[in-house]
């Protein structure tokens, strides 16, 4: 019986060097970082994406007979802004959009709450407001200053397309006015909603993160393929025993 002896080294195989280990470590790092970035980017684009709409609630100041938005607020984001208002006591609610110039003329010195912007963060936006004026306005339904309007018992909703218009800009831009009959207290629940677009609609680094992560992952995978670990000499499977011949 012949004992199997050590198999001679394959003449075409180069031995594993320390540099190979470093390269493989770098490739692993690239792969892991790439996968991490790609996953992070994908999450930011999906489940962790900012909300699709932005809704800010407005509480009219005591004594206000109207809520009015500052010029430019309706164009905060997206192609349209929706104004919803409701009165707890079921009174008729009026929502109108007019030019800033005509809103000033219609309001005169009337007590109003002006919405000047939105603060906080995307998940919990807060309307910035200020109170001005004193006294009453007039029934808005009698006026012809409205570019669009909606009214109804207890609540009203109006969606305004915020397309830029030179004629509107010449009059100071479009603003929304919310009131009841112009003399009683303004509706207590007023909401402004925009559809988020641009940087507000998705995180600005989400796409670069996902794309960059994918590139890194591919580079890492390629690196690992090019520098595959070769089996160590001592770990080769034993050679098939030589056939013993008996004469």
């Amino acid at each position, binding site marked *: 019986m012949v004992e199997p002896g050590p198999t001679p080294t394959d003449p075409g195989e180069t*031995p*594993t060097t*320390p540099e190979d*280990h470093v390269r493989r*470590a770098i490739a*692993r*790092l690239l792969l*892991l*970082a790439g996968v*991490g*970035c790609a*996953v*992070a980017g994908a*999450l*930011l684009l999906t489940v*962790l994406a*900012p909300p699709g709409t*932005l809704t800010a609630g407005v509480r009219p100041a005591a004594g206000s007979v109207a809520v009015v938005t*500052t*010029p*430019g*607020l309706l*164009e*905060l*984001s997206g192609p349209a802004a929706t104004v919803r208002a409701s009165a707890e006591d079921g009174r008729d609610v009026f929502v109108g959009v007019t030019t*800033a*110039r*005509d809103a000033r*003329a*219609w309001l*005169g010195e009337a007590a109003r709450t002006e919405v*000047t*912007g*939105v*603060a*906080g*963060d*995307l998940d919990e936006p807060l309307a910035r407001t200020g109170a001005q004026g004193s006294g009453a*306005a*007039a029934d808005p339904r*009698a*006026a*012809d*200053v*409205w*570019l669009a309007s909606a009214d109804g018992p207890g609540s009203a909703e109006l969606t305004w397309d915020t397309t830029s218009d030179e*004629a*509107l*800009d*010449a*009059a*100071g*831009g479009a603003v929304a006015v919310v009131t009841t009959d112009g003399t009683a207290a303004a509706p207590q629940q007023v909401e402004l909603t925009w559809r*988020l677009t641009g*940087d*507000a609609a998705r*995180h*600005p680094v*989400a796409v670069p*993160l996902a794309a960059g992560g994918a590139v890194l992952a591919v580079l890492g995978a390629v690196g690992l393929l090019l520098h595959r670990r070769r089996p160590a000499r001592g770990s080769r499977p034993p050679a098939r025993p030589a056939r013993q011949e008996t004469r």
Partner: protein
Amino acid sequence: MRPPRTTRARATTPAAARATTRAAALAACAAVLVLPACAELPAVTAPAAAAGERTALVVQPAQAARIAEAATAALGAAGDPAATDLDALAARVTGPELDLRRAAATVAAAGVAPPAAGADDLDAISSVLPRQDGWPRWFLTVTEPGEDSKPSVVVLRSPSAREPYRVWGTPSLLPGASLPTTGAPADGAAVVGPDEDTNLPMSPRAVAERYADVLLHGDDSEFADRFTADAYRSSVVSSAQEQTGALEAAGGSLTQERDLLDDSVVAVRTRDGGALVVAGYRSSVTARGPAGGRPGTLQDVAAALAGRDGDVTSVTTVLEEVVVFAVPPGDGQVSAVAVQSGPVSVEAS
């Protein structure tokens, strides 16, 4: 004995890989947790000032169409003069138009066919939208031909931001006349002040006052040649001459007065540099029979407005008129292009 380098490398690589994995995982988690918080709220951007800082239109074209619809609805509800709710009509009608429709309602209530009223359907084929700040404001719409087969120029006015536009007058185009071209509705038209005569033969107020003089004095007016001949001028002058001749021949008399209605003169610049002027008048014509003469009778419409029809020796008819003028640039003749006229009251004794 020092282990082979390959053996040492194999011993350290798993630790480095684990460290790398941990670092990458931590970085990814940190990015996922931190980056969403970096998304910012959009900021309010004030509308850019319009190029050239042009004065804004009194109403946007779509707004003008909606106002015309509301006025049409009010006028449509008052289609039958005998059943007109004058209070409801006053919500959308004012000035000479309201006075003329009140008179028509009075005449109809007496069982007499009233004079033709102005346009009821304000389906606009064009609008003239002045560029103007502040109030009072006005604008014009030109409607399809109505019952009289003539397009009407509907004058709408709003005294304040809290009050609606109301139909102030609906003069119809005179035969052969056409309105001067103004800017497209979306472009608007520059307002010409009542006393402004830049590049005009006379100011809008002078146009209105001098045309009134021409209507009173005919060709004897010193301003007769400053205006082109028109059908309304011809009919008013010839009618007055005939009545005057008849009354004077019988020993009676005919006297006329014509005054501009308050704040009735408005104007915009036309595309050729001239102006489109609107003016309103209240005129009174008093016919007196000869002293001691036989009392006469009134025609149906006058009798309905006067509330009597016989034993009349003196009659004063008050009319209201709305006239639209085309004023050329430079020094040409002014033309009356659209007119509305009718009696609003009659006093008889």
